[in-house]
């Protein structure tokens, strides 16, 4: 028998060892695999109404009445003149604490030694609240790590749309942030009259439960940000360029496509759009929460992607790409759409309607030329337009659970100060800064930002979002306010119903992950990387990987709100 060579590529003993390990592993797999199921990330449903522990609402009389009275919150009242501000809080608390608050910041962070901050500290009683700015573009994602590592100072501001980055936001909230219930329960009007005048609906949206199944574990875990309604986002059109080109304001999706074709000239660097994706679902009647809507005819929960209108929407987006009606670099996601529109290279931008006002202000300051206005509600194929609008808070200010009760009360003192509405000196200082340094009263009697004011006060988020104001109004340039008020009035009849009103839903983790991939796939189709014919396969994959479970989850949530 030949002696096994040392240089043989495989030794018999090694093979036996490997086989033995493999067998042991294979045998062991079912045993360990059967240990326990994954229960985390299974989603949570939280009602936001009907609590008995919220601050008792007590009206705080407004110092001045608005010039234009709307129907808040979806159609806010407005001021077309600037009233002489009055002091809302005469009995100032004295605070000596020093705190740090993490906030998002889009653009360069303002200088921390500006007199604005010293003036605000002095005005609200001496408490120092230093800001720790994080890049607004990536804030939601990085906030997850800051919160887990407890590296956000004494508080953190999170906008509602940022919570999707947390694998389990409900669990995060109840474990990492201060439970304010005992401090804010009942009648708080004596110490914090403005916090008591915040709508109960806003406080309700700051409630989470330690155990979502048990209503008795619910509590207030945040200070709500501004409570408002109406249409937040829209498509801004360069109406001056449309007029010059003889293009009428479109009233349907088909007319919009014609306008885009008439304007675009790829070879000469002119495109109708710089970006068009997350907004346009409503043009095709696609709404709901996370794409889920109750279909009364089928008596079941249906996702937008299962509806024929979804294919219509993607066909529309694909047409924009194929016919070069959208900027060729749009897939990179790095275009500055606002700058392109200001330069006259694109006609329409997908924006927050705040930019309508910003554009107008730039024109008034002589920085740019032109005029923008939002497109009216649109619909395709002769359907009635729908507009997504919802009354709610924009986000929350969460406080660190390691703070003492006295420290929390001191921060609530300044939140109470920051809740002062339009027409108060508190509001004026917070929103416009120090007169003569950050703003001047213009010829029309309204505050006009100085360059320093634009840089330090107007742009960044900071204390303006610290707390919900008693009431939110349309304010600013009188012409702009009048236009916005009129626009808000014109869209009220098209408001889309929210099937999950009064309930906050956090989808199961697998459904969220599948939804994220679904979005990537939509972008693939819209930018010519995949074909429209792949939609059925895309739907099937989504449903098989968390979609069907999500359907049941949303059905249960819907029935909990509306009954069987």
């Amino acid at each position: 028998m030949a002696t096994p060579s040392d240089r043989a590529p495989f030794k018999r003993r090694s093979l036996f060892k490997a086989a033995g390990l493999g067998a042991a592993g294979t045998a062991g797999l079912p045993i360990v695999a059967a240990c326990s199921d994954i229960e985390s990330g299974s989603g949570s449903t939280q009602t936001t109404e009907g609590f008995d522990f919220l601050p008792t609402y007590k009206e705080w009389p407004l110092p001045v009445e608005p010039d234009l009275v709307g129907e808040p919150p979806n159609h806010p009242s407005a001021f077309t003149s600037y009233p002489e501000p009055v002091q809302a809080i005469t009995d100032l608390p004295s605070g000596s604490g020093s705190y740090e608050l993490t906030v998002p910041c889009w653009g360069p962070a303002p200088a921390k030694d500006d007199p604005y901050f010293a003036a605000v500290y002095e005005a609200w009683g001496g408490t120092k609240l230093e800001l720790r700015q994080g890049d607004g573009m990536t804030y939601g994602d990085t906030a997850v790590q800051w919160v887990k590592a407890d590296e956000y100072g004494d508080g953190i501001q999170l906008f509602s749309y940022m919570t999707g980055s947390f694998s389990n936001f409900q669990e995060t909230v109840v474990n990492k942030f201060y439970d304010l219930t005992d401090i804010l329960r009942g009648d708080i009007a004596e110490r914090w009259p403005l916090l008591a005048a915040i709508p109960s609906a806003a406080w309700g949206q700051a409630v989470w439960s330690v155990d979502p199944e048990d209503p008795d574990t619910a509590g207030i875990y945040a200070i709500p940000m501004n409570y408002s309604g109406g249409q937040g986002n829209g498509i801004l059109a360069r109406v001056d360029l449309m007029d010059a080109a003889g293009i009428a304001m479109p009233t349907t999706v088909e007319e919009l496509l014609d306008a885009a074709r008439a304007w675009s000239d790829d070879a000469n660097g002119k495109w109708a759009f710089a970006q068009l994706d997350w907004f346009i679902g409503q043009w095709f009647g696609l709404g709901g929460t996370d794409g889920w809507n109750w279909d009364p005819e089928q008596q079941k929960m249906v996702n937008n992607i299962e509806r024929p209108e979804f294919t219509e929407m993607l066909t529309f987006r694909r047409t924009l790409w194929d016919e070069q009606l959208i900027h060729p670099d749009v897939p990179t996601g790095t275009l500055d759409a606002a700058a392109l529109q200001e330069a006259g290279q694109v006609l329409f931008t997908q924006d927050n309607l705040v930019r309508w006002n910003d554009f107008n202000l730039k024109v008034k300051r002589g920085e740019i030329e032109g005029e923008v206005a939002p497109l009216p509600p649109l619909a395709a194929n002769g359907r009635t337009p729908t507009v997504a609008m919802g009354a709610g808070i924009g986000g929350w200010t969460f406080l660190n659970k390691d703070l003492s009760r006295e420290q929390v009360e001191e921060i609530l003192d300044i939140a109470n100060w920051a809740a002062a509405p339009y027409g108060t000196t508190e509001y004026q200082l917070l929103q416009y800064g120090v007169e003569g340094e950050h703003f001047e009263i213009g010829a029309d009697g309204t505050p006009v930002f100085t360059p320093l004011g634009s840089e330090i006060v107007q742009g960044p988020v900071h204390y303006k979002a610290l707390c919900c104001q008693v009431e939110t109004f349309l304010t600013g340039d009188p012409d702009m306010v009048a236009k916005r008020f009129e626009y808000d009035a014109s869209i009220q009849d098209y408001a889309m119903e929210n099937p999950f009103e009064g309930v906050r839903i956090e989808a199961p983790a697998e459904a969220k992950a599948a939804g994220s991939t679904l979005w990537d796939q939509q972008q693939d189709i819209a930018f010519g990387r995949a074909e429209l014919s792949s939609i059925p396969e895309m739907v099937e994959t989504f449903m098989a990987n968390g979609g069907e479970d999500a359907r049941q989850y949303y059905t249960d949530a819907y029935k909990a709100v509306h009954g069987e």
Partner: protein
Amino acid sequence: MATLQSTAPPDADRSPARPVVRRKRTVLQRLRHDWPLLLLALPVVAHLSVFHYWPTAWNIIAFLDYSPYRPFWENPFVGFAWFERLFNDPYFTPALLNTLKFAALNLLCMFPLSIALALAMNSIISVRVRSAFQSIVYLPHFFSWVLVVTVFVQVLGADGLVSNWIMDGGGERLDITSNPETFTFLVWMQWAWKDAGWGMIIFLAALSSINPSLYEAAASDGANRWRRMWHITLPGIRPVIILLLILQIGGILSVGFEQYQLQRQAVGYQATEVLDTYVYYQSIVGSQGESFGTAAGLFKGVIGLILILIANNIAHRLGEQGIYQKS
């Protein structure tokens, strides 16, 4: 057979031979003796402990339904449930295949390119030309991926320099930086520009260790340039080539992150998703949580370890040193 015998008288004074017993030093004695070396090693040990071994121990959460908000011992053990979810995820396999594709491409195209650059560099005699050549191929390594990708978009993008030249000449818009079909080529170009020069440095160091007299002897024996390269240069740097190859095979599933993440939106996830971006989007900024991401990372690590052991074993069998000297 004669036996040599000593005529010298026996040494009466010499004591009988005693076996030499080497006393084992105590820990304290060893510490006293080796403390400078231990002190030197201390920062490295501390660094490895804090940033490598301690995090490695946390791989255990791949087998737990982990939540950072409850005490560690209260996290239920779920066995391989996260791995099961990982392998059943329809987007995992494409990410793995993309990773392997880019790794293979890197291994086959970039590795030889660095060697070729080093050989070319080594053959340049003029110091000035050599310095200029070195700077051109070497400096891009210090550019961040953000800069590299931006330069490519500005030059080769749909609205970039080349595209606009072509359009001015009546041609069609260039579509390289957002086309999934050309992404592999784009990635290769970016690697070649950014990293080929860096890879060259190590080979250059290996080349400098070859005895020049070997070349002189070979030249006087009539060996031309190619023969000298084949019979002297390449064998001279073979141990380094093998070592780097093994290390590269070990990290085959780590093809990078920023390069793919930065271009993911422009090119689409199907062409760009690799394991690292998959973990990032599913676990770090996605909703799947820490355990899922750790399971994916552990899978990557185990595959890497197996590959590196196989490659090292093959190197030993081929008579090379590998990553360590076989005793």
